[in-house]
Protein backbone atom coordinates (compact mmCIF):
# COMPACT_ATOMS: atom_id res chain seq x y z
CA UNK A 1 0.00 0.00 0.00
CA UNK A 2 2.32 2.75 -1.26
CA UNK A 3 0.19 5.73 -0.23
CA UNK A 4 -0.59 4.66 3.32
CA UNK A 5 1.36 6.20 6.14
CA UNK A 6 1.86 4.91 9.63
CA UNK A 7 -0.15 7.85 10.96
CA UNK A 8 -3.26 6.78 12.87
CA UNK A 9 -6.60 8.53 12.22
CA UNK A 10 -6.86 11.93 13.87
CA UNK A 11 -3.16 12.36 14.51
CA UNK A 12 -1.16 15.33 13.27
CA UNK A 13 0.15 15.41 9.72
CA UNK A 14 3.84 15.65 9.13
CA UNK A 15 5.09 18.98 7.75
CA UNK A 16 3.84 20.40 4.40
CA UNK A 17 5.31 18.56 1.40
CA UNK A 18 8.78 19.78 0.53
CA UNK A 19 8.84 22.46 -2.15
CA UNK A 20 5.17 23.42 -1.86
CA UNK A 21 4.84 27.17 -2.41
CA UNK A 22 1.70 29.25 -2.89
CA UNK A 23 1.90 30.50 -6.48
CA UNK A 24 -0.63 33.32 -6.66
CA UNK A 25 1.06 35.99 -8.79
CA UNK A 26 0.24 39.66 -9.27
CA UNK A 27 -0.68 38.90 -12.89
CA UNK A 28 -3.32 36.41 -11.83
CA UNK A 29 -4.63 38.76 -9.16
CA UNK A 30 -5.00 41.52 -11.75
CA UNK A 31 -7.02 39.23 -14.05
CA UNK A 32 -9.29 38.24 -11.19
CA UNK A 33 -9.72 41.89 -10.12
CA UNK A 34 -10.67 42.97 -13.68
CA UNK A 35 -13.14 40.07 -13.96
CA UNK A 36 -14.74 41.00 -10.64
CA UNK A 37 -14.96 44.67 -11.68
CA UNK A 38 -16.61 43.77 -15.00
CA UNK A 39 -19.10 41.51 -13.23
CA UNK A 40 -19.86 44.24 -10.71
CA UNK A 41 -20.32 46.84 -13.47
CA UNK A 42 -22.69 44.50 -15.33
CA UNK A 43 -24.65 43.89 -12.16
CA UNK A 44 -24.83 47.63 -11.41
CA UNK A 45 -26.10 48.43 -14.91
CA UNK A 46 -28.74 45.69 -14.75
CA UNK A 47 -30.13 46.76 -11.36
CA UNK A 48 -30.12 50.52 -11.97
CA UNK A 49 -31.64 50.52 -15.46
CA UNK A 50 -35.27 51.75 -15.37
CA UNK A 51 -37.79 48.93 -15.95
CA UNK A 52 -39.41 48.71 -19.37
CA UNK A 53 -42.98 47.57 -19.91
CA UNK A 54 -42.23 43.84 -19.89
CA UNK A 55 -39.99 44.14 -16.80
CA UNK A 56 -42.75 45.97 -14.96
CA UNK A 57 -45.36 43.42 -16.03
CA UNK A 58 -43.15 40.58 -14.84
CA UNK A 59 -42.62 42.29 -11.48
CA UNK A 60 -46.34 43.01 -11.13
CA UNK A 61 -47.21 39.38 -11.86
CA UNK A 62 -44.67 38.19 -9.29
CA UNK A 63 -46.20 40.57 -6.75
CA UNK A 64 -49.67 39.29 -7.62
CA UNK A 65 -48.46 35.69 -7.22
CA UNK A 66 -46.88 36.48 -3.83
CA UNK A 67 -50.06 38.23 -2.68
CA UNK A 68 -52.12 35.27 -3.91
CA UNK A 69 -49.84 32.86 -2.00
CA UNK A 70 -50.15 34.93 1.18
CA UNK A 71 -53.95 35.25 0.92
CA UNK A 72 -54.35 31.54 0.11
CA UNK A 73 -52.09 30.57 3.01
CA UNK A 74 -53.94 32.94 5.34
CA UNK A 75 -57.22 31.30 4.32
CA UNK A 76 -55.76 27.84 5.05
CA UNK A 77 -54.59 28.94 8.51
CA UNK A 78 -58.00 30.46 9.28
CA UNK A 79 -59.69 27.21 8.19
CA UNK A 80 -57.42 25.20 10.49
CA UNK A 81 -58.07 27.61 13.36
CA UNK A 82 -61.83 27.20 12.93
CA UNK A 83 -61.40 23.40 12.87
CA UNK A 84 -59.19 23.54 16.00
CA UNK A 85 -56.27 21.89 14.17
CA UNK A 86 -53.53 24.40 15.05
CA UNK A 87 -52.31 25.96 18.27
CA UNK A 88 -52.19 29.71 18.80
CA UNK A 89 -48.44 30.22 18.60
CA UNK A 90 -48.30 28.39 15.27
CA UNK A 91 -51.15 30.45 13.84
CA UNK A 92 -49.43 33.67 14.98
CA UNK A 93 -46.15 32.65 13.34
CA UNK A 94 -47.92 31.51 10.14
CA UNK A 95 -49.87 34.79 9.84
CA UNK A 96 -46.61 36.67 10.43
CA UNK A 97 -44.95 34.75 7.60
CA UNK A 98 -47.84 35.45 5.24
CA UNK A 99 -47.92 39.13 6.23
CA UNK A 100 -44.18 39.43 5.64
CA UNK A 101 -44.61 37.96 2.15
CA UNK A 102 -47.39 40.46 1.44
CA UNK A 103 -45.47 43.44 2.78
CA UNK A 104 -42.50 42.54 0.63
CA UNK A 105 -44.77 42.26 -2.40
CA UNK A 106 -46.44 45.61 -1.72
CA UNK A 107 -43.07 47.34 -1.31
CA UNK A 108 -41.86 45.94 -4.62
CA UNK A 109 -44.97 47.19 -6.40
CA UNK A 110 -44.85 50.72 -5.00
CA UNK A 111 -41.07 50.93 -5.32
CA UNK A 112 -41.09 50.90 -9.12
CA UNK A 113 -42.82 53.64 -11.15
CA UNK A 114 -44.89 52.24 -14.04
CA UNK A 115 -43.24 53.06 -17.40
CA UNK A 116 -46.51 53.62 -19.35
CA UNK A 117 -50.31 53.82 -19.05
CA UNK A 118 -50.90 50.10 -19.50
CA UNK A 119 -48.46 49.36 -16.67
CA UNK A 120 -50.15 52.01 -14.50
CA UNK A 121 -53.52 50.37 -15.15
CA UNK A 122 -52.10 47.00 -14.11
CA UNK A 123 -50.73 48.56 -10.91
CA UNK A 124 -54.07 50.27 -10.19
CA UNK A 125 -55.86 46.96 -10.52
CA UNK A 126 -53.39 45.08 -8.36
CA UNK A 127 -52.59 47.49 -5.54
CA UNK A 128 -56.11 47.56 -3.99
CA UNK A 129 -56.16 43.75 -3.96
CA UNK A 130 -52.80 43.63 -2.18
CA UNK A 131 -53.99 46.20 0.36
CA UNK A 132 -57.22 44.28 0.92
CA UNK A 133 -55.22 41.09 1.49
CA UNK A 134 -53.01 42.89 4.05
CA UNK A 135 -56.11 44.13 5.90
CA UNK A 136 -57.80 40.72 5.85
CA UNK A 137 -54.66 38.95 7.08
CA UNK A 138 -54.39 41.44 9.94
CA UNK A 139 -58.09 40.93 10.77
CA UNK A 140 -57.66 37.14 10.79
CA UNK A 141 -54.56 37.32 12.98
CA UNK A 142 -56.34 39.61 15.48
CA UNK A 143 -59.74 37.86 15.39
CA UNK A 144 -61.00 37.15 18.89
CA UNK A 145 -64.23 35.41 17.89
CA UNK A 146 -65.18 32.71 15.41
CA UNK A 147 -67.49 35.17 13.65
CA UNK A 148 -64.66 37.64 13.09
CA UNK A 149 -62.37 34.87 11.91
CA UNK A 150 -65.02 33.58 9.50
CA UNK A 151 -65.47 37.07 8.09
CA UNK A 152 -61.71 37.47 7.56
CA UNK A 153 -61.57 34.01 5.96
CA UNK A 154 -64.29 35.00 3.51
CA UNK A 155 -62.36 38.11 2.46
CA UNK A 156 -59.08 36.19 2.13
CA UNK A 157 -60.70 33.56 -0.12
CA UNK A 158 -62.35 36.25 -2.21
CA UNK A 159 -59.11 38.25 -2.61
CA UNK A 160 -57.16 35.08 -3.46
CA UNK A 161 -59.72 34.23 -6.18
CA UNK A 162 -59.57 37.76 -7.65
CA UNK A 163 -55.76 37.72 -7.61
CA UNK A 164 -55.80 34.37 -9.42
CA UNK A 165 -58.10 35.88 -12.07
CA UNK A 166 -55.83 38.90 -12.47
CA UNK A 167 -52.76 36.67 -12.88
CA UNK A 168 -54.53 34.49 -15.44
CA UNK A 169 -55.76 37.51 -17.39
CA UNK A 170 -52.26 39.01 -17.64
CA UNK A 171 -50.26 35.85 -18.23
Amino acid at each position, binding site marked *: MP*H*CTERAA*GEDWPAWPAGYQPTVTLHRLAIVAVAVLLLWAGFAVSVTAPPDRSDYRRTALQVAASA*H*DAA*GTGALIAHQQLDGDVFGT*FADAAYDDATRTLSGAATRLTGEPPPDDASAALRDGLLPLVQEAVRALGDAARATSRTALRAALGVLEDVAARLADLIEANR
Partner: protein
Amino acid sequence: MKRFLAVALGILTAIGGFVDIGDIVANAEAGARFGISHAWILLLGVLGICSYAEMSGRVATVSGRPVFDLVRERLGPRVALGNLAGSLFVTVLTLGAEIGGVGLALQLVTSVDYLLWVPVVGFVLWVVLWRAKFNTLENVFGLTGLVLIVFIIAFFRLDPNYGELWHQASRPGPPHGEDWGTYWFMAVALFASAMTPYEVFFFSSGAVEERWTAKDLLTSRINVFVGFPLGGLLAFALMVTSATVFHPRDVSVDSLSQVAMPAAIALGKLGLAAAILGFFAATFGAAMETGLSSAYTVAQYFGWAWGKLRRPREAARFHTVLIVSILVGVLVLMTTIDPIQLTEYTLVFSAVVLPLTYLPILVVANDRGYLGERANGRFANAVGVLFLAIVVVAAVAAIPLMIVTRMGAG
Protein backbone atom coordinates in the same frame (compact mmCIF):
# COMPACT_ATOMS: atom_id res chain seq x y z
CA MET B 1 -28.44 -9.75 18.87
CA LYS B 2 -26.30 -6.81 19.99
CA ARG B 3 -24.92 -6.44 16.47
CA PHE B 4 -28.40 -6.65 14.97
CA LEU B 5 -29.58 -3.87 17.29
CA ALA B 6 -26.56 -1.76 16.38
CA VAL B 7 -27.32 -2.18 12.67
CA ALA B 8 -31.01 -1.38 13.22
CA LEU B 9 -30.09 1.72 15.22
CA GLY B 10 -27.69 2.78 12.46
CA ILE B 11 -30.42 2.45 9.86
CA LEU B 12 -32.93 4.39 11.94
CA THR B 13 -30.48 7.24 12.57
CA ALA B 14 -29.55 7.28 8.88
CA ILE B 15 -33.25 7.63 7.99
CA GLY B 16 -33.93 10.34 10.56
CA GLY B 17 -30.64 12.09 9.85
CA PHE B 18 -31.09 12.22 6.08
CA VAL B 19 -33.48 15.17 6.00
CA ASP B 20 -32.15 18.68 6.63
CA ILE B 21 -33.34 22.24 5.95
CA GLY B 22 -32.34 21.92 2.27
CA ASP B 23 -34.50 18.82 1.80
CA ILE B 24 -37.39 20.38 3.72
CA VAL B 25 -37.36 23.61 1.71
CA ALA B 26 -36.58 22.18 -1.74
CA ASN B 27 -39.09 19.32 -1.57
CA ALA B 28 -41.94 21.41 -0.18
CA GLU B 29 -41.34 24.21 -2.72
CA ALA B 30 -41.10 21.75 -5.60
CA GLY B 31 -44.27 19.94 -4.50
CA ALA B 32 -46.28 23.16 -4.20
CA ARG B 33 -45.21 24.61 -7.56
CA PHE B 34 -44.66 21.55 -9.73
CA GLY B 35 -46.62 18.74 -8.07
CA ILE B 36 -44.48 15.63 -7.96
CA SER B 37 -43.05 16.07 -11.44
CA HIS B 38 -39.59 16.28 -9.82
CA ALA B 39 -39.94 12.90 -8.09
CA TRP B 40 -37.44 11.40 -10.54
CA ILE B 41 -34.86 14.04 -9.59
CA LEU B 42 -35.20 13.11 -5.92
CA LEU B 43 -34.77 9.44 -6.84
CA LEU B 44 -31.68 10.34 -8.89
CA GLY B 45 -30.22 12.36 -6.01
CA VAL B 46 -30.79 9.54 -3.50
CA LEU B 47 -29.11 7.03 -5.84
CA GLY B 48 -26.20 9.45 -6.29
CA ILE B 49 -25.65 10.05 -2.58
CA CYS B 50 -25.94 6.30 -1.92
CA SER B 51 -23.29 5.60 -4.54
CA TYR B 52 -20.80 8.14 -3.16
CA ALA B 53 -21.59 7.59 0.54
CA GLU B 54 -20.88 3.89 -0.01
CA MET B 55 -17.50 4.80 -1.51
CA SER B 56 -16.71 7.17 1.38
CA GLY B 57 -17.77 4.59 3.95
CA ARG B 58 -15.67 1.92 2.23
CA VAL B 59 -12.64 4.20 2.09
CA ALA B 60 -13.00 5.06 5.79
CA THR B 61 -13.62 1.52 7.04
CA VAL B 62 -10.88 -0.14 4.97
CA SER B 63 -8.17 2.52 5.35
CA GLY B 64 -9.20 3.70 8.83
CA ARG B 65 -8.87 7.27 7.58
CA PRO B 66 -11.54 9.74 6.43
CA VAL B 67 -11.90 10.73 2.79
CA PHE B 68 -10.67 14.31 3.09
CA ASP B 69 -7.50 13.14 4.79
CA LEU B 70 -6.74 10.88 1.83
CA VAL B 71 -7.77 13.45 -0.77
CA ARG B 72 -4.95 15.75 0.34
CA GLU B 73 -2.47 12.94 0.50
CA ARG B 74 -3.50 11.39 -2.83
CA LEU B 75 -4.18 14.53 -4.92
CA GLY B 76 -1.84 16.99 -3.26
CA PRO B 77 -2.37 20.20 -1.31
CA ARG B 78 -3.39 22.35 -4.28
CA VAL B 79 -6.24 20.20 -5.57
CA ALA B 80 -7.33 19.48 -2.01
CA LEU B 81 -7.34 23.23 -1.30
CA GLY B 82 -9.89 23.76 -4.08
CA ASN B 83 -11.92 20.94 -2.62
CA LEU B 84 -11.60 22.44 0.86
CA ALA B 85 -12.48 25.99 -0.18
CA GLY B 86 -15.60 24.95 -2.10
CA SER B 87 -16.96 22.48 0.40
CA LEU B 88 -16.14 24.64 3.44
CA PHE B 89 -17.88 27.69 1.96
CA VAL B 90 -21.03 25.70 1.24
CA THR B 91 -20.92 23.77 4.52
CA VAL B 92 -20.66 26.91 6.66
CA LEU B 93 -23.52 28.53 4.70
CA THR B 94 -25.52 25.33 5.20
CA LEU B 95 -24.71 25.49 8.91
CA GLY B 96 -26.18 29.01 8.97
CA ALA B 97 -29.28 27.79 7.16
CA GLU B 98 -29.69 24.88 9.61
CA ILE B 99 -29.36 27.21 12.64
CA GLY B 100 -31.97 29.45 11.01
CA GLY B 101 -34.18 26.38 10.52
CA VAL B 102 -33.94 25.56 14.24
CA GLY B 103 -34.87 29.19 15.01
CA LEU B 104 -37.88 28.99 12.67
CA ALA B 105 -39.04 25.72 14.26
CA LEU B 106 -38.81 27.34 17.70
CA GLN B 107 -40.71 30.37 16.41
CA LEU B 108 -43.59 28.09 15.42
CA VAL B 109 -44.07 26.92 19.01
CA THR B 110 -43.22 30.13 20.85
CA SER B 111 -44.22 33.01 18.50
CA VAL B 112 -40.84 34.55 19.38
CA ASP B 113 -39.08 35.82 16.25
CA TYR B 114 -36.47 33.36 14.96
CA LEU B 115 -33.76 36.06 15.03
CA LEU B 116 -33.98 36.15 18.82
CA TRP B 117 -33.48 32.38 18.89
CA VAL B 118 -30.48 32.33 16.56
CA PRO B 119 -27.76 33.33 19.11
CA VAL B 120 -29.31 30.98 21.69
CA VAL B 121 -29.32 28.10 19.20
CA GLY B 122 -25.71 28.87 18.24
CA PHE B 123 -24.63 28.79 21.89
CA VAL B 124 -26.56 25.58 22.70
CA LEU B 125 -25.14 23.97 19.56
CA TRP B 126 -21.60 24.78 20.66
CA VAL B 127 -22.22 23.48 24.20
CA VAL B 128 -23.77 20.26 22.91
CA LEU B 129 -20.91 19.66 20.47
CA TRP B 130 -18.39 20.43 23.20
CA ARG B 131 -19.90 18.24 25.91
CA ALA B 132 -22.01 15.44 24.43
CA LYS B 133 -20.72 12.14 23.10
CA PHE B 134 -20.71 11.50 19.35
CA ASN B 135 -22.94 8.41 19.52
CA THR B 136 -25.45 10.09 21.81
CA LEU B 137 -25.78 13.08 19.49
CA GLU B 138 -26.20 10.92 16.40
CA ASN B 139 -28.76 8.61 17.99
CA VAL B 140 -30.88 11.23 19.78
CA PHE B 141 -31.33 13.55 16.81
CA GLY B 142 -31.43 10.80 14.18
CA LEU B 143 -34.18 8.96 16.06
CA THR B 144 -36.14 12.12 16.86
CA GLY B 145 -35.94 13.09 13.19
CA LEU B 146 -37.93 9.92 12.49
CA VAL B 147 -41.10 11.68 13.66
CA LEU B 148 -41.12 13.24 10.19
CA ILE B 149 -42.87 9.97 9.31
CA VAL B 150 -45.92 12.02 10.28
CA PHE B 151 -45.83 13.38 6.70
CA ILE B 152 -46.21 9.85 5.29
CA ILE B 153 -49.22 9.25 7.54
CA ALA B 154 -50.57 12.71 6.68
CA PHE B 155 -50.34 11.92 2.97
CA PHE B 156 -52.71 8.97 3.27
CA ARG B 157 -55.07 10.93 5.54
CA LEU B 158 -55.27 13.82 3.04
CA ASP B 159 -57.20 11.64 0.59
CA PRO B 160 -54.98 12.59 -2.36
CA ASN B 161 -55.91 12.39 -6.01
CA TYR B 162 -53.70 9.42 -6.93
CA GLY B 163 -54.51 9.68 -10.63
CA GLU B 164 -53.37 13.30 -10.76
CA LEU B 165 -50.21 12.54 -8.79
CA TRP B 166 -49.37 9.66 -11.11
CA HIS B 167 -49.96 11.98 -14.07
CA GLN B 168 -47.49 14.52 -12.61
CA ALA B 169 -44.84 11.90 -11.80
CA SER B 170 -45.06 10.08 -15.12
CA ARG B 171 -44.97 13.20 -17.32
CA PRO B 172 -42.17 15.33 -15.91
CA GLY B 173 -42.30 18.95 -16.97
CA PRO B 174 -43.55 22.38 -15.93
CA PRO B 175 -47.27 22.71 -15.16
CA HIS B 176 -49.44 25.60 -16.43
CA GLY B 177 -47.94 28.91 -15.30
CA GLU B 178 -44.36 27.63 -14.99
CA ASP B 179 -41.64 27.28 -17.62
CA TRP B 180 -38.75 24.92 -18.34
CA GLY B 181 -36.24 27.34 -16.83
CA THR B 182 -37.87 27.28 -13.41
CA TYR B 183 -38.45 23.53 -13.72
CA TRP B 184 -34.75 22.87 -14.25
CA PHE B 185 -33.73 25.41 -11.61
CA MET B 186 -35.82 23.53 -9.07
CA ALA B 187 -34.42 20.24 -10.38
CA VAL B 188 -30.84 21.42 -9.73
CA ALA B 189 -31.79 22.62 -6.21
CA LEU B 190 -33.48 19.30 -5.40
CA PHE B 191 -30.54 17.29 -6.72
CA ALA B 192 -28.12 19.41 -4.67
CA SER B 193 -30.28 19.01 -1.55
CA ALA B 194 -29.97 15.22 -1.81
CA MET B 195 -26.23 15.29 -2.58
CA THR B 196 -25.09 17.97 -0.12
CA PRO B 197 -21.26 17.71 0.20
CA TYR B 198 -21.17 17.68 4.01
CA GLU B 199 -23.03 14.38 4.12
CA VAL B 200 -20.14 12.34 2.72
CA PHE B 201 -17.51 14.11 4.85
CA PHE B 202 -19.59 13.57 7.97
CA PHE B 203 -20.32 9.96 7.08
CA SER B 204 -16.67 9.04 6.49
CA SER B 205 -15.32 11.03 9.45
CA GLY B 206 -18.05 9.53 11.65
CA ALA B 207 -16.97 6.04 10.60
CA VAL B 208 -13.44 6.85 11.78
CA GLU B 209 -14.76 8.44 15.00
CA GLU B 210 -16.69 5.24 15.73
CA ARG B 211 -13.55 3.22 14.94
CA TRP B 212 -15.14 1.20 12.18
CA THR B 213 -12.89 -1.34 10.49
CA ALA B 214 -13.22 -3.48 7.37
CA LYS B 215 -15.44 -5.78 9.47
CA ASP B 216 -17.99 -2.94 9.65
CA LEU B 217 -18.21 -2.58 5.88
CA LEU B 218 -21.51 -4.47 5.80
CA THR B 219 -22.97 -2.20 8.50
CA SER B 220 -21.82 0.84 6.55
CA ARG B 221 -23.44 -0.47 3.36
CA ILE B 222 -26.70 -1.37 5.11
CA ASN B 223 -26.85 2.15 6.60
CA VAL B 224 -26.32 3.65 3.16
CA PHE B 225 -28.47 1.39 1.00
CA VAL B 226 -31.37 1.01 3.45
CA GLY B 227 -31.17 4.12 5.65
CA PHE B 228 -30.59 6.74 2.94
CA PRO B 229 -33.39 5.60 0.57
CA LEU B 230 -35.83 5.46 3.49
CA GLY B 231 -34.62 8.95 4.47
CA GLY B 232 -35.30 9.93 0.84
CA LEU B 233 -38.83 8.59 1.35
CA LEU B 234 -39.33 11.15 4.15
CA ALA B 235 -38.15 13.88 1.78
CA PHE B 236 -40.58 12.57 -0.84
CA ALA B 237 -43.38 12.67 1.76
CA LEU B 238 -42.70 16.40 2.20
CA MET B 239 -42.94 16.86 -1.57
CA VAL B 240 -46.09 14.82 -2.05
CA THR B 241 -48.03 16.33 0.89
CA SER B 242 -47.12 19.80 -0.34
CA ALA B 243 -48.25 18.75 -3.83
CA THR B 244 -51.55 17.52 -2.39
CA VAL B 245 -52.35 20.61 -0.29
CA PHE B 246 -50.78 23.57 -2.10
CA HIS B 247 -50.43 22.64 -5.79
CA PRO B 248 -54.19 22.40 -6.49
CA ARG B 249 -54.63 25.84 -4.86
CA ASP B 250 -51.76 27.26 -6.94
CA VAL B 251 -50.08 28.48 -3.73
CA SER B 252 -46.27 28.51 -3.48
CA VAL B 253 -44.43 27.58 -0.30
CA ASP B 254 -41.84 29.97 1.09
CA SER B 255 -41.99 29.47 4.86
CA LEU B 256 -41.54 26.63 7.33
CA SER B 257 -45.03 27.21 8.74
CA GLN B 258 -46.48 26.36 5.34
CA VAL B 259 -44.44 23.14 5.14
CA ALA B 260 -45.99 21.99 8.44
CA MET B 261 -49.57 22.71 7.37
CA PRO B 262 -50.34 19.41 5.60
CA ALA B 263 -49.61 17.59 8.88
CA ALA B 264 -52.00 19.91 10.73
CA ILE B 265 -54.71 19.59 8.09
CA ALA B 266 -54.51 15.78 8.11
CA LEU B 267 -53.80 15.04 11.76
CA GLY B 268 -54.66 18.13 13.78
CA LYS B 269 -52.59 19.52 16.64
CA LEU B 270 -50.81 16.23 17.32
CA GLY B 271 -49.65 15.99 13.70
CA LEU B 272 -48.56 19.62 13.77
CA ALA B 273 -46.58 19.10 16.98
CA ALA B 274 -44.88 16.03 15.49
CA ALA B 275 -44.02 17.94 12.31
CA ILE B 276 -42.45 20.81 14.26
CA LEU B 277 -40.53 18.39 16.48
CA GLY B 278 -39.31 16.66 13.32
CA PHE B 279 -38.16 19.99 11.83
CA PHE B 280 -36.35 20.83 15.06
CA ALA B 281 -34.58 17.48 15.25
CA ALA B 282 -33.73 17.41 11.54
CA THR B 283 -32.29 20.94 11.50
CA PHE B 284 -30.50 20.73 14.86
CA GLY B 285 -29.05 17.33 13.93
CA ALA B 286 -27.92 18.73 10.57
CA ALA B 287 -26.48 21.81 12.30
CA MET B 288 -24.32 19.48 14.39
CA GLU B 289 -23.28 17.53 11.30
CA THR B 290 -22.43 20.63 9.28
CA GLY B 291 -20.57 22.21 12.22
CA LEU B 292 -18.53 19.07 12.71
CA SER B 293 -18.01 18.66 8.95
CA SER B 294 -16.56 22.18 8.71
CA ALA B 295 -14.08 21.37 11.47
CA TYR B 296 -13.36 17.89 10.05
CA THR B 297 -12.47 19.18 6.59
CA VAL B 298 -10.21 21.99 7.79
CA ALA B 299 -8.45 19.87 10.43
CA GLN B 300 -7.97 16.95 8.05
CA TYR B 301 -6.60 19.24 5.33
CA PHE B 302 -4.04 20.86 7.61
CA GLY B 303 -3.25 17.59 9.36
CA TRP B 304 -4.36 18.77 12.80
CA ALA B 305 -5.57 16.47 15.56
CA TRP B 306 -9.32 16.16 15.14
CA GLY B 307 -12.40 14.40 16.38
CA LYS B 308 -15.14 14.38 18.99
CA LEU B 309 -13.44 11.43 20.72
CA ARG B 310 -10.48 13.63 21.64
CA ARG B 311 -10.67 16.06 24.48
CA PRO B 312 -11.02 19.66 23.30
CA ARG B 313 -7.60 20.42 24.81
CA GLU B 314 -6.04 17.71 22.63
CA ALA B 315 -7.75 18.97 19.46
CA ALA B 316 -7.83 22.69 20.19
CA ARG B 317 -7.58 23.83 16.57
CA PHE B 318 -10.38 21.45 15.53
CA HIS B 319 -12.65 22.89 18.22
CA THR B 320 -11.64 26.44 17.32
CA VAL B 321 -12.72 25.92 13.71
CA LEU B 322 -15.97 24.46 15.03
CA ILE B 323 -16.65 27.56 17.15
CA VAL B 324 -15.70 29.94 14.35
CA SER B 325 -17.98 28.08 11.91
CA ILE B 326 -20.91 28.37 14.30
CA LEU B 327 -20.16 32.07 14.83
CA VAL B 328 -20.02 32.70 11.07
CA GLY B 329 -23.32 30.83 10.62
CA VAL B 330 -24.93 32.95 13.34
CA LEU B 331 -23.50 36.19 11.90
CA VAL B 332 -24.81 35.37 8.41
CA LEU B 333 -28.29 35.01 9.89
CA MET B 334 -27.94 38.21 11.93
CA THR B 335 -27.74 40.13 8.64
CA THR B 336 -31.53 39.35 8.72
CA ILE B 337 -31.39 37.27 5.55
CA ASP B 338 -34.42 34.97 5.52
CA PRO B 339 -33.25 31.42 6.44
CA ILE B 340 -35.40 29.95 3.66
CA GLN B 341 -33.78 32.29 1.13
CA LEU B 342 -30.35 31.44 2.57
CA THR B 343 -31.19 27.75 2.09
CA GLU B 344 -32.12 28.39 -1.54
CA TYR B 345 -28.83 30.19 -2.22
CA THR B 346 -26.93 27.47 -0.37
CA LEU B 347 -28.46 24.81 -2.59
CA VAL B 348 -27.39 26.66 -5.74
CA PHE B 349 -23.82 27.14 -4.49
CA SER B 350 -23.82 23.56 -3.29
CA ALA B 351 -24.65 22.42 -6.83
CA VAL B 352 -21.74 24.49 -8.16
CA VAL B 353 -19.15 22.87 -5.86
CA LEU B 354 -20.47 19.30 -6.10
CA PRO B 355 -17.76 18.17 -8.58
CA LEU B 356 -15.04 19.44 -6.22
CA THR B 357 -16.36 17.03 -3.62
CA TYR B 358 -17.25 13.98 -5.65
CA LEU B 359 -14.40 13.76 -8.19
CA PRO B 360 -11.71 13.33 -5.48
CA ILE B 361 -13.82 10.68 -3.74
CA LEU B 362 -14.05 8.72 -6.99
CA VAL B 363 -10.27 9.00 -7.46
CA VAL B 364 -9.49 7.85 -3.91
CA ALA B 365 -12.02 5.00 -4.08
CA ASN B 366 -10.14 3.71 -7.14
CA ASP B 367 -6.76 3.71 -5.43
CA ARG B 368 -5.67 0.17 -4.66
CA GLY B 369 -2.88 1.63 -2.55
CA TYR B 370 -5.49 2.51 0.05
CA LEU B 371 -8.25 0.02 -0.61
CA GLY B 372 -6.50 -3.05 -2.05
CA GLU B 373 -9.09 -5.45 -3.39
CA ARG B 374 -11.85 -3.22 -1.91
CA ALA B 375 -11.17 -0.54 -4.55
CA ASN B 376 -14.02 0.33 -6.94
CA GLY B 377 -15.02 -2.40 -9.35
CA ARG B 378 -16.43 -1.81 -12.83
CA PHE B 379 -20.02 -1.41 -11.64
CA ALA B 380 -19.14 1.08 -8.88
CA ASN B 381 -17.05 3.05 -11.36
CA ALA B 382 -19.76 3.04 -14.03
CA VAL B 383 -22.29 4.35 -11.50
CA GLY B 384 -19.75 6.80 -10.05
CA VAL B 385 -18.83 8.23 -13.47
CA LEU B 386 -22.48 8.48 -14.47
CA PHE B 387 -23.32 10.50 -11.37
CA LEU B 388 -20.18 12.57 -11.72
CA ALA B 389 -21.35 13.54 -15.21
CA ILE B 390 -24.76 14.52 -13.82
CA VAL B 391 -23.07 16.46 -11.00
CA VAL B 392 -20.94 18.37 -13.54
CA VAL B 393 -24.00 19.23 -15.65
CA ALA B 394 -25.83 20.47 -12.52
CA ALA B 395 -22.78 22.50 -11.47
CA VAL B 396 -22.44 24.17 -14.88
CA ALA B 397 -26.19 24.88 -15.15
CA ALA B 398 -26.77 26.16 -11.59
CA ILE B 399 -25.62 29.80 -11.88
CA PRO B 400 -27.00 30.49 -15.40
CA LEU B 401 -30.36 29.04 -14.33
CA MET B 402 -30.28 31.16 -11.17
CA ILE B 403 -29.73 34.33 -13.23
CA VAL B 404 -32.13 33.51 -16.07
CA THR B 405 -34.99 32.49 -13.74
CA ARG B 406 -34.23 35.19 -11.16
CA MET B 407 -33.70 32.62 -8.45
CA GLY B 408 -36.55 30.47 -9.68
CA ALA B 409 -39.11 33.28 -9.71
CA GLY B 410 -39.61 32.94 -13.47
